[in-house]
């Protein structure tokens, strides 16, 4: 029987992979993909909690992932646009190069 | 009441004009922006006269009221209305807004943005005087002060303070001004929150930001609250009104600002501070006022003398006028500190009169700067023959400022000092000594700018455009009118002032 803990474990693993990616990858696109992984980890949590605690007829928990997916899509669009303009300016997608805000 | 539409229109006409310019003004077309601003200015001016003349001093305490729920859960409502005190301020705002808009016709670059910012300031100032909701006061306060930063930073000019060896950059002054105003604003906000959270304890059924409801609260029931909160509020508003030693933003800010903004800063923004002291500090915390005002009377006299002494040393025209504002605002503080009807009427009259006079002086100083490209009186001289119109207006403004009978400054100073005698004689005598100094620095400035031998290196032309002449003439007409017939103002404000004094004396 697959219980809630399986889902939580899956989401934790996904989250950790995403976090590791965000912290270590230098490629902007890879960083963005890692962020997507973290989003999805949260989405899995939402759905799982909703299903196990509220039952199948209450979909309040399922609404949030929809929101998150929408936001993630727009975020990806903006993020890719930034990376694109970064590439245009610096001919690279290495995020370490984009340190102009540095004090 | 239906009459509220006039007050609403007065408040929203600059905002509407700003929006209109923002949306429809084609870039690089100054005519549209000027026309829109001018129309709103004339509209507001006419409305302010209507409101002032139709205010009934014998009627209810707040008139022209409009009250709409905005966030009822938090006790915030859009509540506007005027009493005898704000009626005077509304008139002042109406006059000066129009004068400032006309003076702004001299602005040549980025006209569109300039007028949007200017109209926002005007709306904010008007809002502060008519709102009866503490929350909205903060909103309007910020609306009036934030655009100042951009106006000074972008359209301002550098100045030279006498005892500084470095040139005061306009960006520096803008930053200083905005930091000070925000500091004052922060204290005001915190004090208003304290009032809000204690309003239930003070006997109100629910927490509210509504001024009229708070007026029925008894904050004196809460021990220590008025005692602690009054000085905080007084100083917070005092920062805005140029209270020594929190005045240093004032000379820099006023001098750096473009002409019209100096007029608004000195003319109405300073008065917002004094108005706030009357409206919020004294009226809501009368027991604190009674306790603390005698101390502030001493600071007020320091204000008068200190400002006058500093003005005597300056050689940048705008700095002279700015320090004279510090000195003259001291008279307002002194009048408020007397806690009697003569002093309070004098203080209110001084708020009005000083607004008109300083705006006039700043306007002429700005015009001189524009024509001669210097504000240093040591480099000027002998201009009376070349600019007779400016010379006459500046002399008249200066005379009004030094309290010549027949002009509004005299009535204000006379009433204030009459009141001060009933309060503390020594302070009256010390304050009156300021009159000698005022005469000295104003006449010295007049002499160095306009009199003396002809300076062939300066060849400026006189003010000739209608938008340069009409506001100056109109402002002079105002000081003469209210100097000769002061009863117009005193009869409007009398009952409202008496009710505040009754609160402080514990009668009402």
């Amino acid at each position: 029987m697959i219980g809630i803990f399986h889902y939580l474990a899956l989401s934790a693993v996904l989250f950790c992979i995403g976090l590791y990616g965000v912290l270590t990858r230098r490629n902007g696109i890879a960083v963005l993909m890692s962020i997507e992984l973290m989003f999805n980890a949260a989405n899995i949590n939402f759905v799982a909690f909703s299903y196990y605690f509220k039952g199948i007829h209450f979909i309040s928990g399922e609404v949030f992932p929809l929101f998150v997916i929408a936001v993630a899509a727009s975020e990806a669009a903006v993020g890719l646009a930034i990376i694109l303009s970064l590439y245009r300016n610096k001919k690279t997608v290495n995020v370490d190069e984009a340190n102009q805000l540095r004090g | 009441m239906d009459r509220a539409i006039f007050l609403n229109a007065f408040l929203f006409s600059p905002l509407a004009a700003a929006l209109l310019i923002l949306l429809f003004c084609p870039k690089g077309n100054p005519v549209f922006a000027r026309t829109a601003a001018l129309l709103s200015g004339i509209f507001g001016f006419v409305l302010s006269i209507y409101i002032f003349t139709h205010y009934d001093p014998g009627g209810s305490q707040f008139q022209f009221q409009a009250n709409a729920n905005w966030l009822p859960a938090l006790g915030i409502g859009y509540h506007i209305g005027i009493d005898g005190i704000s009626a005077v301020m509304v008139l002042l705002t109406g006059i000066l807004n129009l004068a400032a808009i006309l003076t702004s016709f001299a602005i040549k670059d980025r006209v569109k943005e300039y007028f949007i910012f200017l109209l926002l300031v005007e709306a904010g100032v008007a809002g502060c005087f008519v709102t009866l909701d503490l929350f909205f006061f903060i909103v309007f306060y910020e609306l009036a002060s934030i655009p100042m930063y951009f106006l000074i930073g972008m359209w301002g000019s550098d100045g030279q303070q006498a005892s500084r060896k470095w040139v005061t950059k306009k960006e520096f002054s803008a930053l200083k001004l905005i930091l000070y105003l925000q500091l004052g604003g922060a204290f005001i906000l915190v004090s208003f929150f304290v009032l809000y959270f204690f309003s239930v304890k003070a006997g109100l059924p629910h927490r509210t930001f509504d001024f009229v409801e708070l007026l029925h609260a008894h904050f004196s029931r809460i021990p220590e609250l008025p005692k602690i909160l009054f000085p905080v509020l007084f100083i917070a508003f005092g920062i805005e009104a140029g209270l020594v030693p929190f005045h240093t933003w004032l000379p820099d800010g006023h001098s750096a600002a473009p002409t019209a903004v100096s007029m608004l800063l000195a003319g109405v923004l300073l008065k917002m501070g004094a108005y706030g002291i009357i409206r919020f500090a004294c009226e809501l915390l009368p027991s604190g006022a009674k306790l603390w005002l005698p101390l502030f009377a001493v600071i007020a006299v320091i204000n008068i003398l200190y400002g006058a002494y500093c003005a005597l040393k300056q050689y940048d025209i705008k700095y002279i006028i700015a320090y004279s504002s510090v000195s003259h605002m001291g008279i307002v503080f002194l009048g408020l500190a007397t806690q009697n009807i003569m002093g309070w009427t004098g203080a209110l009259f001084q708020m009005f009169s000083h607004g008109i006079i300083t705006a006039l002086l700043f306007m002429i100083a700005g015009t001189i700067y524009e024509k001669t490209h210097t504000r240093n009186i040591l480099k000027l001289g002998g201009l009376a023959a070349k600019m007779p119109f400016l010379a006459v207006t500046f002399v008249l403004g200066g005379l009004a400022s030094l309290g010549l009978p027949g002009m509004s400054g005299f009535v204000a100073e006379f009433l204030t000092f009459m009141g001060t005698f009933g309060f503390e004689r020594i302070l009256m005598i010390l304050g009156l000594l300021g009159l000698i100094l005022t005469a000295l620095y104003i006449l010295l400035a007049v002499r160095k700018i306009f009199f003396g031998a002809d300076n062939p290196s300066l060849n400026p032309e006189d003010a000739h455009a209608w938008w340069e002449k009409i506001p100056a003439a109109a402002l002079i007409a105002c000081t003469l009118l209210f100097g000769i017939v002061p009863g117009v103002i005193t009869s409007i404000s009398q009952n409202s002032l008496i009710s505040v004094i009754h609160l402080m004396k514990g009668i009402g």
Partner: protein
Amino acid sequence: MDWIKFAYLIPLLPLAAFLLIVFGFRFFKGSRISSYVSILFNTASFVLSCFVFLKILNLEHTDSYSGPIQFSLSWIHLHSVSGIIPLHLQIGILLDPLSAIMALMVTFVSTLIMIYSIGYMEGDPGFSTFFSYMSLFVMAMLTLTLSNNFLLTFAGWELVGLCSYLLIGFWYKKPSAAKAAIKAFVVTRTGDVGFLIGMIILYWKTGTFNFIQISHLNLPALLSGWLLWGIPLLIFCGAVGKSAQFPLHVWLPDAMEGPTPVSALIHAATMVAAGVYLVARTYFLFVISPTALLVVAWIGVFTAFMAATMALVQWDIKRVLAYSTISQLGYMMLGLGVGPIGFVFAIFLLLTHAFFKALLFLGAGSVSHPFHEEENPFDMHHYGGLKKKMPHTYWTFLFATLAITGCPLFAGFFSKDAVIDSAFQSRILTHNLLWGLALFTAFLTSAYMFRMFFLTFHGTKEPEHQVHESPWVMILPLMILAVFSLIGGWFGFSWYRLHLPWHDWIERFMNPYVQLYHIPVSHTIDWMGMGLGTFVFLAGFFTAWVLYSKGLRFASALENPIIKPFHQLFVQKWYMDEFWGLILSLFGFGLSSIASWIDTNLFDGTVRGIGMGTGGIGLKIRSIQTGFVQQYAFIIYLAVLILIIFVVSGGYLWTARFF
């Protein structure tokens, strides 16, 4: 008659002239119209004053005289709140003998001087401006004269000060004129502050500004302690400033920078006499305090003496006249200060002095007219032997000189010597000393006036310039004034009891005051007073004759070790300018430097210090900001981890115990 109600038009007519010139400036430019407007309205005002004067004269002679006539308007009204007296300010006019005769004199002299100015100011680019200022001045002076309360008097008081400022600085391109204008305004304003303080205290004690109401109160009961002498002396401060009494006399000699008609009207006949008028107007405050009277008398006599000594050594004809004015004003103050006995004579001196001093100034203007190309056309070094070239000026000037020095039958003989004699007869403390000093000053007056007269008109010197007589428009006012310098005194015979039909005319006219202040009227002819007056006049005349009639003689006497320090003292104006200069640089500019330093370094310095400190801290800690977003994210991750461990281990419960 009801037309007396139109008396308020007396000050309003010159105001109308002023407004007409100001608004019609463009059209009047370059023509004489503005002078005609001024003179027309001024004459109308003069005619109205005559009517008022005659009306009051008639009222006095009937038994129906019921005191002064007043009309008032409410100006500001503030209710009484919580035990504080209500503020009810009125503006109104008061018609009584004093104000009526003063208004008559002001309108009369000003009309004559305006006529003279047509000639004097001919061709000046500021012709219209000049006449507008003059009209404004007359309006202000009449306001001050006719006002029935302290407030309106103060308003007129300040406005005449303004006109004085504007007219002294009329030739604003001259730096000395611009400086003198400021000096005049600021010095008189110093006195005005005292006046204002006295006024305000009086209101709080009596509840009114109205002269008549205050004079009917029981003042000694209301004003206790120091206020009894404090209030009159504070009001006297204003008079000291405006009437150029010691120690605030320093502005008047410098005020001679203005055009000569201005000196004649404002700085000789009317405005400077306003201080004397004020003391007379508020005399009910002075009579109750012997201390105040004594101070007034001593200030007056000392000013008279000091100014006379300075007049002795001046070479600028207008400055001689300026010091002479100060000196004569000192006499008027002395007359008021010795008590009610001198009151009428002080007023009488004020009126007659207006005639002959205006005449002297106008004459000096006429003399200097051919010399206007000189750097200082008033320098007597240029003059000498002008008698033949300008006969009209010479004779009128002689009349005025005889009048001021107290030659028998001329105006000063009746007025000035009466003042001196009243000092002798009064019972005030030290009255003998006052009288002695006043008499000695009369000798000095005679000496310096004839010195000036001889240096200007006599002597053998041939003028370098093409000297000519002035136009008729200037001579005519001189002649009229000369007539009044002669007959003006005859209205005040009463003191000598010579039985002419109008012998006690001035005294009768001032009868209400005689009764109000219980002025004793003597009925014997004072031969000693007359004799002494004539004697000092002759002594002064001969001194001047010996020393100066043949040009400057005995110049070497100035090197005498006894005379030299005195001469130096008088030439240096008793070092009063230096004294005030020191005060100004200490309490004015000195304190202003300190204030400005404090402003920059203490207040602003603190603020800038805080600003810089904030900036400095920012500079130090900004190195944390590496700009690597992943590093930030790692730090966030770590921080969240620590928080979670903290919460899970129950740490926050542990810390909560402290709160």
